[in-house]
């Protein structure tokens, strides 16, 4: 990266996950996960349905404490600190939830304004300028006074993205950004994500199983397996497709069923 705002890219990772085990009570979702998210990269958490992708995301954004292991942000152990410290670090995060998760009682503009009103000292006029800018970036400036219930699925996602951008986050998390979107809308969203990464210099973590969008945007990633419940491959989606030694990963990336390769087993 050549962006001046990214210091020593690739040297110390922005997010670092070490030997993390995630569990709900006795039920282990994923164990012994280790991976790094480089500054300015678009990092994909991949895997089939039900392998625990979204749970991994939850633990990274502070909604679920890992049973074991550590998650560090800029070298600081995120889950070791106090809750107040976690909230402070969390303010550097922006999260786009699967269906936008807009607050339904507020208009689109108020949704974007709320974090600014809570966490910055900006006056009302400045807040409304920031709101208009963030909505403009996602192409939603005309919907500022609409309620979430009046929006389509794709618009809700873009409004959710504008809200995630409100505080100029260092890291943006996306949970299944293309779920429920048509291919055109989805590829527009991919372009938007790429542009925002380049423009804002943000680091992006994306949870997805949509192959076209993974190939289009992600430049690094980790592949989670539902059977062994751990990471079985690391690298960009393209490299996993073309050079993965693991037949299962390769099959997923090529959209073939594993039995075509291993023959016999009924899934």
């Amino acid at each position: 990266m050549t962006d001046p705002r990214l210091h020593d890219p690739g040297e110390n990772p922005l997010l670092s996950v070490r030997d993390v085990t995630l569990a709900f009570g006795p039920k282990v979702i994923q164990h012994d996960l280790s991976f790094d998210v480089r500054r300015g990269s678009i990092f994909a958490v991949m895997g089939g349905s039900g392998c625990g992708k979204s749970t991994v995301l939850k633990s990274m954004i502070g909604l679920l404490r890992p049973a074991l292991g550590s998650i560090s942000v800029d070298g600081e152990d995120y889950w070791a600190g106090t809750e107040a410290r976690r909230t402070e670090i969390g303010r550097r995060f922006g999260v786009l939830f699967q269906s936008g998760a807009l607050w339904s009682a507020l208009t689109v503009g108020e949704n974007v304004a709320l974090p600014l009103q809570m966490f910055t000292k900006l006056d009302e006029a400045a807040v409304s300028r920031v709101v208009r800018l963030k909505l403009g970036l996602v192409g939603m400036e005309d919907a500022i006074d609409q309620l979430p219930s009046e929006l389509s699925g794709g618009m809700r996602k873009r409004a959710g993205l504008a809200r995630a951008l409100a505080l100029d986050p260092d890291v943006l998390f996306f949970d299944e950004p293309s779920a429920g979107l048509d291919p055109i809308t989805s590829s527009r969203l991919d372009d938007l994500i790429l542009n925002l990464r380049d423009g804002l210099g943000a680091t992006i973590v994306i949870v997805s199983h949509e192959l076209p969008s993974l190939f289009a945007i992600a430049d690094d990633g980790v592949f989670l397996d539902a059977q062994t419940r751990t990471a079985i491959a690391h690298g960009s989606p393209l490299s996993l497709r073309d050079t993965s030694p693991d037949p299962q990963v390769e099959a997923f990336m090529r959209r073939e069923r594993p039995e075509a390769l291993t023959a016999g087993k009924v899934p």
Partner: protein
Amino acid sequence: MEPTGPDAAPAWQLRRLNGRDVLVLAGDWIAQSGRIPEFPANALAGVAGGQAVALDVAGLGRWDSGLIEFLWDAERTATSAGIAIDSATLPASARTLLGLLPDRLAEPRPVTRRGFRPLNWLGGKTIALLSELGVLSMLLAMTAQGGVLAVAGRARMRAVDLLGNIRDAGPSALIIVSVVNFLIGAILAFVGAVQLRKFAADVYVANLVGLALVREMSAVMTAIVMAGRTGGAYAARIATMQGNEEIDALQVIGIPVADYILLPSILALVFTMPFLYLYGCLVGMLGGFTVSIAMLNITPAGYLLQTLDAVPLDQFVFGFLKCIAFAVLIGVTSCRIGLKAGRSAADVGVAATRAVVIGIVGVIALDAIFAVIADVVGI
């Protein structure tokens, strides 16, 4: 990274250099500093139309979306004045972001403010009220029909749903119904004791407590508890189902909403409320009994005999029938409110509130009507 000293204030200037207009930007442009200046609408007045304004960013320090905010303002002002801004000197990332933003904002839609037209308003309200009454009676008819079919064993209602609803509405409400009615009985006894003792008519406390509970208090209090507890729950549940498209799914599969949701809910209330009322009467009398024995010059046996004497059976029957009417009212209105609700979280809250308010007000209003009827009939 640029040196991280204290922020230099963002500054801008429009200069004329070598026959070109140049917008000079300097300092740190951080959105959350709150110091991002606005681009005045008349700033480009001195620039000849059709010319491009160049940007000089040599003095630019740290920046984030704050700079984009300012540049977008400038760009929109320029576009409307027919002037171009040459952004070639900007950092590539800033150009990318500016590229995402539209050149102009849509004109805000004019707010059409219609004057207050009382006849219009009254007419609208009346029509809404009439159609709502129509829908309610239709629901009532459908429920009654379903109830008759259920008795004949031909309804498409599942017994398990009805039993589940009865359990939620009845046994689970016993504790709160007990507490409320016991205290009401005790309070009635207190109030009565203070007055009746003056006339040495202590024993008539039993009449007062018994009659008041059986005729009015127990039925109304139980109905209010049920409106808050069960009516609110019905409205919230049905509104949430609406939001999750569960109601749509039922309709597509061909399961009538009336049979699957409304009938068990309303029937559960109709079955349980009268019995909760009878139970409430007993508990309330126990409350009155406790206070009377403790405060007054009266024997336990005397209190019981006096109660039996004072409350004839037809009073119980009247209370019983009243409770069935309350149950139908609470069940039908709360289900209707749930079905009518919007699909968002806020709408679910509104539906639950409305169901409780309408339930309570409706029960009291209906009770007043019953009081008048009872007076006319002479019960």
